[in-house]
């Protein structure tokens, strides 16, 4: 087991190195001259050259990559071109915000979608199943900005339950931010809901057909014991994996939702960095997102193995 984790972590390092290389090369290829972006159209050639020298942009590419990588690994993620602030502080602040949003989303989405999925699975092909399936599909069919705007319209503007704007100040804690987190978290929940519900439903339907369910039933166990003790631990395996992986998406992929609600997460920082062609910022966000995705994947696999005795990790 520990061997397996060690090997997976080694793979993870290689993945990150490759990603860093890709990120570096791609940002080099982006059109436009960084020095001119920073100094503006009117800057003189000597000033541009001086800045390039300062930023190390005049050195050969492999050297630039290595020195960038070295600095990155030692915690110096550089200075944001557009704001002049240290990239590390900016990114970690936003990553904290993203984690809060991801956390609340999972807190809402997991019980809800698993519950709906189990109910639909147990009542497969009955009216209740159809209602749940059609309902969750209808919700997922709407783009995030539409569900987001509907939630703002109904829950914020009409019912005044939650604020419409989620632009929390830096350093706000989870409970303090909670009211402002609810609407974006609900929107993200709707994205996950149909998928997770259907996956859970499929798992329950599949497992209910297995011979061991018959064995358990014919032991004379009440139905809730058969489902709770026997079926769920097998039926929820794929769901748990998918949820763990979706954590990566919740951290780094909520670009639309964060923009709709004006929420200062990583996704919005990324759009900001792209707008300003802020290379150090883009590089840091991308690497961090890849890291979170990879760790979420690893976590999903470990969780799956821990819950499924048939899998032996070697």
């Amino acid at each position, binding site marked *: 087991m520990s061997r397996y984790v060690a090997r997976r972590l080694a793979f993870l390092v290689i993945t990150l190195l490759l990603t860093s290389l890709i990120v570096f090369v791609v940002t080099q290829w982006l059109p436009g001259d960084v020095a001119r972006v920073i100094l503006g159209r009117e800057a003189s050639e000597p000033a541009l050259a001086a800045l390039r020298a300062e930023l190390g942009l005049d050195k050969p590419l492999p050297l630039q990559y290595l020195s960038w990588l070295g600095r990155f690994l030692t915690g110096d993620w550089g200075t944001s071109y557009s704001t002049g602030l240290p990239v590390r502080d900016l990114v970690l602040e936003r990553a904290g915000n993203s984690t809060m949003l991801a956390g609340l989303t999972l807190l809402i989405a997991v019980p809800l979608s698993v519950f709906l999925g189990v109910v639909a699975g147990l009542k497969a092909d009955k009216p209740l199943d159809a209602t749940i399936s059609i309902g969750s599909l209808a919700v997922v069919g709407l783009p995030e900005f539409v569900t987001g705007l509907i939630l703002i319209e109904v829950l914020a503007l009409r019912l005044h339950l939650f604020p419409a704007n989620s632009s929390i100040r830096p350093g706000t804690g989870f409970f303090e931010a909670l009211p402002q987190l609810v609407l974006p978290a609900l929107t993200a929940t709707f994205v996950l809901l149909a998928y997770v519900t259907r996956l859970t439903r499929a798992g329950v339907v599949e497992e209910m057909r297995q*011979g061991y369910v*018959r064995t358990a*039933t014919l032991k004379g*166990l009440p139905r809730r014991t058969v489902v709770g003790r026997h079926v769920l631990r097998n039926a929820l395996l794929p769901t748990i994996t998918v949820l763990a992986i979706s954590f990566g998406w919740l951290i780094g992929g909520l670009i639309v939702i964060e923009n709709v609600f004006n929420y200062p997460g990583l996704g919005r920082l990324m759009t900001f960095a792209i707008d300003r062609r802020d290379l150090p910022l883009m590089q840091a966000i991308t690497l961090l997102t890849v890291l979170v995705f990879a760790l979420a994947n690893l976590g999903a696999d470990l969780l799956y193995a821990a819950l499924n005795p048939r899998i032996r990790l070697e």
Partner: protein
Amino acid sequence: MASFSNVLEIDGLTVSYRRGQKSLDAVRNVSFSIAAGQSYGLVGESGSGKSTLALAIMQYLPENGLVTGGTIRLGGQDLAALPREQMQQVWRDQIKLVPQDPGASLNPSLRIGDQLDEALCDGNEARDELRQRSLEQLRQVRIADPERVAASYPHQLSGGMQQRVLIAMALARQPSLLILDEPTTNLDVTTEAVILDLVRDLVHGQRTAILYVSHNLGVVASICDRVAVLYAGELVEDLTPQQLRRRPLHPYTLGLLDSVPRLGQRAGVDPLLPIAGTIARLDALPAGCVFAPRCPIAQQLCRDLRPELEETPEGGLVRCHRWREIAAGMVDARADRPAAVASQNGVSGAASALRTEALVKHFPVRRTLAEALRRTPARQVHAVDGVSLQIGQQRTLGLVGESGSGKTTAARCIVGLVERTGGQVTLFDIALAPGLDRRDAAVLRRLQMVFQNPEEALNPHRTVGDVLQRPLMRLMGLSAGEARQQAGELLEAVRLSSAYLDRTPGQLSGGEKQRVAIARAFASNPDVLILDESVSALDVSVQASILNLLTELQAEQGSAYLFISHDLAAVSYLADDIAVMYLGQVVETGSAEQMLHPPFHPYSEALLSAVPRIDAAGPERIRLPGDLPSAIDLPSGCRFHTRCPRLLGDICRTQEPPWQETAPGHRYRCHIAPDELTAMQVSSGEQNGWPRREMGEASR
């Protein structure tokens, strides 16, 4: 029997399945009863309704199934009328089911101990006490190390061990009725024998009533006090095992008996008599006797009027208009003998069609990183470990062994689906490359294979015509038109009409699919055909007709067969020569005749002894303890020593046994010399009822 009270009483039971608008009666008007301590066998082929009947008694029918007539009484209580909560009590305390598939019937994510505790639990005993009782229960089903088994997950146990756990679970609360639904069908013969012994012993002298459901007449006859034969949802005969052995009366029962090869029965001498046709469909039942369309002695009356179940003077029940004539010996209700096939095809000692020399297949076991760093040598699964086989032209070599013996891997190496690690494979005088991709079309044409499961071997989206035309065009170079015509002829050869050309596998029965698979293999007119468990999954009557078909095709086409099976009776029926494999090695080879008489390798002896038989059932049987050892860490010395009933001592544990030759062509690998082995085995053979050596046969 009258002094016993009946535990189970089934009266006029009809069970129906809703299918769309229609309601199909899968079980019709079945009545029987089982007394305390009695065991009742229910025999039938697929479609007979035996599983439906068992599930109806359990009140565990699928959602579209319903008891539409009659009563099921357990201890006087009508189960069909019970609400679910009360049925839960019945499930918990009174009726238990041991299912066919032990692997799927245990929860893969829960430890055995927890699953067993659950079956024992009354709701308020202490955990420790409960676990102690669970361990005791495991000991009862002769599990030697109950602590280890209780701490295991199901996948860590062998099939036989899983089935013991399920039996332990079923017997935990001393149920009044135990239903065993094909409990040994998926197990090896050696394991099956052990499990059957266990069931026999556990219920002996108990008050538990047993319903044993099986397709295997031999198994049922050896375990039950009474046997009922079910056909297309109706009970056609009900009799004692003695009557079954001596004189069954219903033509279907006779047909079943004649479809199963007895140990020692040979295709060339005494062909099987398969039942013609296929089982009646539930939506098109005949007006008269349900068996009339397949019955060799059906008359007009049989086709017009459904017969009643009548009592025979011997106390049996039979549903046939002509049973009195059959009982009096006035008609022969057995099927017509198939046209005698010119029996001995190839001659022994003639040039071989296929030869393997020291065939080896090792699968590497992945090393862990630490092992690789420490330079620990990589470990291997020794699937096939030096197997030399020889099949004479137009002859059949039977290859026998338990699952895990390496017989299928050997076959796959021969056809090239798996690349061998070492050794030679020679087809006539062509040395074959290890991999299929480096063999040319001529080799593919001459060497073909039929797989075990026709359901998986045929592409469900291709018509039978496509399946047959492909090898004809690719390997025989025929044009599309010629190929189609030839495909029609192939179908005729496997006794299907050319109307099947445009059907897809989904429209065929299991037996028809296997015929198509055989026709496909014969399309290229191969010199050697490998049949890997090709009849094992089929109903006995279908199996019989396929076995006969293979014999006929061999006579017509002159192909040599490698016939792989765990079923010794089927192998000895078809094969000229037999090789027995154990843990990747051949332990005995000889002619089929030689292999059935002492001396044999102790492993072959155990295999023979494990075959369930309708005739002679002696208690003094040889049983193999434990499971097949790991093919990674092979036992030292003789590979069989860990389970050998004839173990000599240290020599077996330390030294590889030599080949002992008893007669030309017959060799076995053992430390015991032929004379001694014969002496041991002849004395125990009298109790075991080895096939008697008949006059003249020995010298043949």
